[in-house]
């Protein structure tokens, strides 16, 4: 029996940008774009050298992370200063 399910669309090559007529606000921390295979622990390890610090990134991105175990490639996360 043939599989009639629609294949999942691939958005890995999507390019993006943004700009504003308003002045940019002073930066407070860094940003990081999630890639395939990332987890908050991995990102915390990369930026802070300690995977246990994942909650800091989670708290800074509560607006876009509903489930700490579920982040998506392409998401741009705020990474608070160490």
């Amino acid at each position, binding site marked *: 029996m043939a599989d009639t399910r*629609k294949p*999942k*669309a691939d*958005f890995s*090559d*999507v*390019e*993006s*940008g*943004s*700009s*504003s*007529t*308003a*002045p*940019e*606000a*002073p*930066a*407070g921390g860094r*940003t990081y774009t999630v890639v395939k295979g990332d987890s908050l622990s991995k990102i915390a390890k990369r930026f802070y050298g300690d995977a246990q610090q994942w909650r800091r990134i989670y708290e800074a991105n*509560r*607006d*876009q992370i509903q489930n700490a175990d579920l982040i*998506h490639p*392409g*998401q*741009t996360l705020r990474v608070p200063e160490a």
Partner: protein
Amino acid sequence: MLAHGRRWFVLALGLAAAASAGCKKDAPPPAQEEASAPAPAPAAEFSVSSIEVGRGIGSDKRIATPVTTFKPKDTIYVSVATEGAAASKTIAARWTFEDGQVVKEGRETIAPTGPAATEFHIAKPSGWPAGKYKVEISVDGAPAGSKDFEVK
């Protein structure tokens, strides 16, 4: 004679008074009434006034011709017009496909001093899959509106 003497007396009195005034220390100038500056108008509260999607933007970051249907090779823009001033506001755009997949997310942290427009755009060199899409706009994490569009 008496009248003449009185005239001298008055003159002397006047001179004495003038001399006395001249010896006084400089008195502080009278306090001037403070100029009452008009109270500054309260800054307009920051808010999103409109969200439009289209194929291009002008130098004002606004979309001249909003559309809701795109071709697979189009660059898709969303322009978020805002009112009011703020020290820092993060506007985020979250693009999703009909199956719920997150296509892309972007954010701009701005310090607007008045009306402003912020644009986000996405492009896919290999072409957009046909279907329905949505772009959701949030300000500091709070939903501020969304637009649906379709790629045919």
